[in-house]
Structure formats: structure tokens, C-alpha cells
């Protein structure tokens, strides 16, 4: 498996029903580092130098977070603001080189609401544009976007099925 950094951002993790189960997927995997942003930087102070240096060694980034008010969690946004550098895409050999990404997002609403004709008149892909574009300009290809809709009302078996799906995606090189 590729050397993977999971960037997990959840401001209310202890109240999450689905994510408590889903993050178990990352336990005990070789070559995988699990980074819990809200646990590591509770005061929103991100040591940017440290992060920039560490990120170089990974071949894959997994962004795992809940959708909050139609956006990514604020600390994840801040992490990107502090760590990514707009001048990098002009350089050769910058810290974000040779990486791909997987996005795993839990959404409370139903899938049919997130369509152009649905209740919110937009799609999840549109809402996550700030993240996916930031990755794209740094030549990070998003291999897969796993959206977990209805995330507050999933049964244990459904969650186990999703976990299996995530595991398979991780194992695809």
C-alpha cells in the first residue's frame, strides 16, 4: 500500500455516530499515519513548518471529515491555508509532489437533496470545489470521493459495508 496520511477533521467527533465506527478502518494499517486535526491542534495553532516537512514523505492523502454547513470543517480549511503554499505549483520538487488523494465525507442529508434538481440545487462535488481545486493546482489527483449520505441514521451493518468499501479503496494502489 502507498504511504498514506489520513487527515481527519471532526469538531464534534464524540457525538458522531457513523465516524466513531468508520475510523476503525485505519487501525493497525502499516504505512498509514492517522492525524486527528481537532485533537492535535485544539487551539487552532498549526505548526506549519513541521507539517510542511512531514507531508513530503507521504504518497497519498486521505481527507476524512463531515460536511458542516455545506463546507469542509474550519480547522481543515485552516490546515490547508497554513500548510499549502500558492507558489509551490510553479516549482519542481515541492512538498506535495507525487501524491494522490481520497476524500471521504459524511453527510447528514439524503443523497437526492444534493443534485442540481434537488433541495439544495447543487452537488457535493460543487460544494467541495475549494478542496478539490486546491489539490488539483498542486497536481494531486483525487482518485475517489466516497460520500456517505444519511450518516446519522446508518445501521451497524451499513457502516460495516461502508468500512469494507473504504478498505478496498485504500488497498487499490
Amino acid at each position, binding site marked *: 500500500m502507498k504511504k498514506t496520511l489520513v487527515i481527519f477533521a471532526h469538531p464534534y467527533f464524540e457525538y458522531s455516530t457513523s465516524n466513531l465506527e468508520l475510523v476503525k478502518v485505519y487501525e493497525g494499517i502499516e504505512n498509514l499515519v492517522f492525524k486527528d486535526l481537532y485533537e492535535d491542534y485544539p487551539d487552532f495553532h498549526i505548526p506549519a*513548518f513541521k507539517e510542511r*516537512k512531514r507531508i513530503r514523505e507521504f504518497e497519498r492523502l486521505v481527507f476524512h471529515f463531515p460536511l458542516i454547513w455545506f463546507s469542509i470543517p474550519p480547522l481543515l480549511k485552516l490546515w490547508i491555508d497554513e500548510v499549502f503554499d500558492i507558489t509551490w505549483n510553479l516549482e519542481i520538487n515541492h512538498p506535495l509532489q507525487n501524491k494522490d488523494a481520497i476524500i471521504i465525507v459524511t453527510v447528514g442529508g439524503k443523497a437526492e437533496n444534493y443534485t442540481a434538481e434537488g433541495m439544495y440545487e447543487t452537488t457535493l462535488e460543487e460544494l467541495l470545489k475549494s478542496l478539490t481545486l486546491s489539490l488539483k493546482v498542486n497536481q494531486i489527483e483525487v482518485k475517489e470521493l466516497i460520500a456517505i449520505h444519511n450518516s446519522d441514521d446508518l445501521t451497524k451493518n451499513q457502516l460495516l459495508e461502508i468500512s469494507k468499501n473504504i478498505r478496498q479503496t485504500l488497498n487499490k494502489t
Partner: protein
Amino acid sequence: MENSLAMTALIFLGAAIIMVPLVRKFGLSSVIGYILGGIIIGPFVLKLTGRGSEDIMHTTEFGVIMLLFLIGLEIEPKKFWKIRKKIFGMGLSQMVLTVASLFLIFYVAKWRPDQALVAALCFALSSTAIVLQTLKEKNIFRTDAGETSFSILLFQDISVIPILALLPIIAERPADKEKQILLQYLPDWLQPFSIIFGVLLLIVIARYLFVPFLRYVSRSGMNELLTATSLFLVIGVSELMDAVGLSPALGAFIAGVMLATSEFRHELESQIEPFKGLLLAVFFVSVGASINFSVIMQDPMFIFTTTIVVLAVKFGVLFGVGKFFKLKMDQNFMVAFALSQIGEFAFVLINYSTNLYLFDPKLNAQLLAITAITMCITPILLIINDKLIEPRWPKPSNNDDEIREPVKEQKIIIVGFGHFGSTVGRLLRVNGIKATVLDNDPERVNILRSNGFKVYFGDAAKPGILRSAGAETADLLILCLDDPEKNKFVLEYAREKFPQLKVFVRAKNRLDAYEFINSGVDHIYRETLGTAVDMAVDILKATGMRAYAARRLGQRFMLIDKAVTRKLAKEEKSDKVTFTMKAYLEREAELLAQDSHSFDESQWNENEDF
């Protein structure tokens, strides 16, 4: 051989000192060591004790009274309420069933009915000293088996009191004629109510006199005075009860319960504990010394069949009760084996009954021997349980997600509850996190208590007080004392005695912090760091810096400062000072100058930590 009292005491203590470490080496309870030591110095082996041993036994029975006082202190009404079902359900059924079965067996074996009943009552009790010691050594206080054992023992300890009151009635004679001075002033019809009257009197005294009295003494700040006062209270109460014709043990127990919620609970515990330990040790040795082997030799069959019958009945009843209360198999075996012996209260009760002429000296000697033998068998039974029975019950596997053990509450001790500690404590309290708080300022403790804070009076620098505050089973120790030297002292003591504690410590400045870092503490809070940085951040704002930029700088400063302090502490320890303080301060300034907004890659590569 006739010895002076001091000489006899010397021999007794000597026996204890030699035998206890020896039996501990074999993994046996210290009680066995005391009893064996007693047997060896006794009239049947070395003949070192004269008639003094009986006297010493009576004197040191006082240790049992102190034990009851301490048990009373442990029983906070709230805690009592929490496990009330276990205490009364399991405890009562164990007592009733055991007494009934033993009485029936003894009766069928043609004992005198009153003797059969008293023996059954004595034998139903288990040994608090042995079982609690075992639980502590195996570290299973918080398991089902631990809680069940504690509940049953508690009920038994409480039932000693009515049994003591019951014995004179069974004997059909007043407890002690000469001593009932006060009681005789009461009219005849009132005398049966004397127990209720005495207890009420004691509750009133304990409630309205003890605590102000202790406060008054503690204000003097003299340690030995508190020791004297603690002893004065216990001895005073038991003498008072004696004077009105009630059991001193009952008095001590009630006094303990009344003081359990006061701020002096842990202080009293740590003061009385050593006396109790010493007296009980000598008591057990004297029990050993008074075992009459010629009686055993005369009728070994009687002794051994009775012993086996008692053990079997106690085991059976405990096992049945455990099963009925749905205890898991392995836990149930543990409880049944651990509590199958006869307890130390039996010694007291048997001797008391003999004084009431319920038992003749021969039966007395036989019963005492049986009690001692069951005590010596317990460790062997527990080894059998460990080696043969427990492995047969598989531990519940943790793989099953459906079984979610409730998260165990962390036990926290806060030392020092001044302005610093109370701020810590308040934030914990509003989040519903309970902590045991110790403070050694009697005025402050009094004020905090009247405001509803659960604070105990006690100087944590004194050995024993942390233990009585529950340091052995606690998870976190929070040191918030004003004096850094005192914090250091308590820290070192706690590290040595209770290595499982995770320590959070308040430090005044950098120099204190160095020492704490070098003694391996991870959580250090410099009171001069956070506030000073807050102030500097506000000053930066006042000079015109944007608030967000100032805050970022402040946070970076804290991180760098903490890291530098760690490095400097290590160098101070190794005496290899490569950088001087000045050099570090310059470096710190350099680091700060590069905010993370710096876009030059060459700079951030080397400063990756901040």
C-alpha cells in the same frame, strides 16, 4: 517465665518482624505471619510468653475498635447508598444462610443450643484484614469480585455490632455488672432503650462537637496535637460507650460514620491507621500465642471435622449467593474462596462469649484454634483457585463490539485548593468530574465546605495522607500547592509509592520546571508563562499590531519557550551546557522572527518543530 509488659511487647513485635517478611516471601497474607509468629513464641514452642499474652490480647483488642472506626470513616452515606443492594442483599443472605446452616449442623451434632448459635454467629464472619489485603495485592478492587467481597465484608462488620449486643441476651446475664454505673440511674423501663439513647447521644456529640473541636485543634498547626486528638476521640468514644453499657466497637463505628463526611476524614484515617496496624499486629500475634495445642491434640478429629464443615458451609453459601446475584463463574469462585475463612472478629466474639460463661475454656480454645486454622488455609485455597480453577473460565474476549464496557471514571486527587487549585477544581466540577481535594488550611477548608465544595483537611506532605485519600487506586494527581518545594516533595513521595499516578504539577517558573522535567513529569504548568504571554499579546495589540497576528505570535512563543525549556533542562542535568541561556534566548528571538507566513523554504526546513 514472668516478663514485664515491655519485655512481652518486645517479644511480640520481634516475632512479627521476623515472621511477616518470611511469609510474605511465600506470597501469604501478613496475618498468617503474625499468627505463626505467635505460635512460635507461644507456650507450645519457644515458651517465650508468660501469662502476659492474655493481657496483651485484651489490650490490643483495641486495634479492632480502631479498625471499626476506620471502617466507619470509609462508609460515606452516599457510597453506602450506591452499593446498598449488594450490601444488604448479598451480605444479609450470606449471614442468615451461613448462621442457619451452621447452627443446624452444630445442633444435630448435639452441641448445646446456645453454644451452637453463638459459634454459628462467630463463624459466619469472614476476615476483613485478610480479604482486603488479598484484594489489594491482586489489584482487583474494582472488579465484580472485589466489590462483592467488600459489600459482604461491610455487612459482616456492621453485624458484629448487633451480635455484640445480642451475646449478653443469649447468655441471659447483663454484660458487666460493675460497669453499668450510668445505666443504673435510668428507670427500669427505660433500660432497654439505652442502646437507642446512647447512639442518639453519640450522633449528637459527633455532629455538633467533634468537627468544631477538630477545627479548633487544627488551627494550632501542630501535628502531634492532631495525632493526640484523633486518639483522644477514638478512645474517648469507646470509653463513653463502655460507661453507658454499650459496645465500644459500636461507638467507634458510629463516630467513624459521623466523621466520614467531614473534612478531617483523610487526616483522621492517616493518624489512626498506624496505631490500628500496630495494635492489630500484636493482637494477631497474641492470638497465635494463645492457641492451645494440647486442646487440639486431645481431640484432633473434632477440630478438623469442624474446620472442614465450616469452610465447606461458608464456601457453599457464598457460592450460592453469588450465583443467585448472577456473578460470573470465575468471579464467584474468587469470592467464595476468598471469604471462606473465619474472621478476626471471631476472636473477639469468642473471648467475649467466654467471659459471659457461654463457652468453657476448653471449647474456647478449640474454637479459637479452628478460627486460626481456617485463616491459615485461605492462602492455600486462593492458590488452588489461581492455578486450577480460574484458568478454566475463559476471559471474555474484547473482540465483540457489542459488549461495551462503560468507561471507568478516572479517580483524581487535587492537592492544594488555593486560588490556583480551586480554579482547576471549578472547571472540573462544572464538567461533572469529581475529585478528592486536600488542603491544609483549616480556615479555607471550612469556608469552601460551607460553599458546598468537598474538600478535606490534610497535609499531603505527610506520609499516609495521600494513601488515605485513595492514591493507591487513583489515576491522576494534581499538585497545586503554592510552595514549589512542597510540590516537589509530594511528587517524589507519590512517584515512589504510587507509580501508576499520572502527575500534573504547578510550577512557579523556569527553574522549577527544569527540576520537574528532569524528574520525568510530562505535565508542567508554569504560572508565570501563560498569563505573561497573554499580557504581552495584549500589549502588542495596544501598540497597533492586528489582534490575530499578535495571538499567533503569542502561541508560537509558548510552543518555542516550552521546547527550549525542555532542552535547557536536559543540559542542566547532564552538566554539558552547549548553549548558554543567552544563546538560547537569541535563538528564540530568531525563531519568532520567522512567522509561518514566511514563504522561504530554506527557512522552514530546519525549524520543523514549531
